[in-house]
């Protein structure tokens, strides 16, 4: 069995997955504490990971009905992410593996999001295009095989999930406001206001910084009272712009590559409008279960199945990396 750890941001995650990709346990301990700061505080995230990680591992093993004796491979997220947070998982995973003489598979977090698609019971086989959109990353990739991906486009500034959260803050919805913004948008008119979709950004790259600024100006122009009265329309139009910005690049990539298979991942994959739009593309679409779209360790275990593991003691010096 594979025991996997994921601590790249603010969720402390451990999973037990079989080599065939069957999930036996997938435990996520979310650190709700960041909400009151209006964003993830790296130092607080690191402190919580350290406090939680061993208990989360115990929980995953117990849920899987397994013991450490049953573990054949330890997998962990090596990067990218918050380096202090990553280091807790890296130090923990290395020590667990070393003390038991097990091999270790270091996994790239973004490859993990891609590999969420390979898990049972409904694995989606390459080749396909994969859009990964969350609060931390936004990229469009071509997945030719199980072991890697080619980046076709990435955000030049904010991540899509970050755009949701920043928009929600401007509308007074608190943090993390993405889901609240989508709920508000459900009853609004997505065409009431025209927000930019970074149409001038060529190719397959994304940009969301201008969108946030456009919403700020629109809210100011309307004035507090009008903005509050039209909050559903503002939310719907803002969400529409994010989804269309994502979809424009996906459609372009489908045209350019001729690939007629598309997968999505990351927290934004839970967005209903994005799901509806992508389902209407007329291509084969795969969306992993919601708990496999947001950060989790099962996807890290999945990716580890195609990583050449490092034998003991070759990984003792392994370090985390912050950026891709």
């Amino acid at each position, binding site marked *: 069995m594979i025991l996997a750890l994921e601590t790249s941001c603010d969720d402390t995650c451990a999973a037990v997955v079989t080599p065939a990709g069957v999930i036996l346990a997938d435990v996520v301990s979310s650190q709700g504490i960041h909400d009151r700061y209006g964003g993830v505080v790296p130092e607080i995230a*690191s402190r919580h990971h350290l406090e939680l990680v061993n208990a989360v591992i115990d929980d995953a093993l117990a849920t899987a009905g397994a013991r450490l004796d049953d573990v054949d491979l330890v997998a962990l997220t090596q990067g990218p992410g918050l380096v202090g947070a990553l280091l807790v998982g890296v130090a923990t995973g290395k*020590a667990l593996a070393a*003390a038991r003489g097990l091999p270790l598979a270091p996994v790239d977090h973004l490859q993990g999001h891609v590999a969420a698609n390979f898990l049972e019971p409904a694995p989606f086989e390459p080749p396909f295009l994969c859009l990964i959109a969350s609060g931390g990353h936004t990229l469009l990739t071509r997945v030719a095989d199980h072991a890697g991906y080619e980046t076709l486009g990435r955000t030049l500034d904010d991540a899509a999930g970050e755009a949701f959260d920043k928009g929600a803050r401007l509308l007074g919805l608190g943090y993390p406001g993405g889901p609240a913004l989508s709920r508000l948008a459900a009853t609004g008119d997505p065409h009431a206001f025209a927000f930019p979709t970074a149409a001038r950004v060529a190719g397959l790259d994304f940009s969301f910084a201008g969108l946030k600024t456009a919403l700020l100006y629109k809210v100011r122009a309307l004035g507090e009272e009008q903005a509050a009265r039209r909050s559903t329309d503002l939310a719907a139009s803002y969400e529409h712009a994010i989804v269309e910005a994502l979809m424009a690049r996906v459609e372009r990539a489908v045209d350019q590559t001729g690939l007629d298979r598309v997968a999505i991942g990351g927290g934004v994959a839970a967005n209903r409008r994005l799901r509806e739009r992508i389902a209407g593309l007329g291509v084969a679409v795969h969306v992993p279960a919601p708990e496999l779209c947001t950060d989790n360790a099962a996807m890290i275990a999945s990716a580890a199945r195609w990583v050449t593991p490092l034998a003991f003691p070759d990984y003792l010096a392994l370090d985390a990396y912050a950026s891709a």
Partner: protein
Amino acid sequence: MAVLGFDTATPSTAVGLLRDDGTAFERRDDPPAGARPNHASRLLALVEEVLAEAGTGWDGVGRLAVGVGPGGFTGLRIGIATGRALAQARGLEVVGVSSLRALACGAPGEGVVAAVLDARRGEAFLAAYGGPETIVAPVALSPHDLAAAVAGLAPGVRAVGDGAVRFREQLERAGAAVPADGDPVHRLGAGPVCRLGAAGSPTARDSLVPDYCRAPDARPR
């Protein structure tokens, strides 16, 4: 059963093993001044080295002694995460050891010892001990408050640690004796960590946490 001990509160990585027969083994990594600490890349490798040198496999280790700071946050977390995971993997007892007490225990001789570590941001971590007695519990202080705290200790108190070197001027003016800069007494060694760990009582794995001595910077990313 042997005690395996390590500390990562300072830029150094210090690892030791204390056998039942009293034989001690030590390994350490000291990055040059100003260089990035090597805790992540060296700690486990040094652990394997002392285990090999002592001829003690994991089966011969019964207890872990882990330095809990105060010190650099990231280094402490690497050390404590490693300690907790080793305990989890091997079913070992674990004892948290104050890094400042370990530093003070490394200073030979009698009398009150002020253990002072460079806390960055222009501050110092201080604790003072008279033998087994804690006179000043670990605290983060400005140079001014450090001098005032040390001035209130016994005259001729010895101050050791990288913080004692850094704040030599203030400490000496406050009446402390600070050994020469290069004196090994300023380096936190794994020997005292192992000895304090052997004498202490084990804690629950999940209550082994750093003694941060400072609130986190609450700035979102």
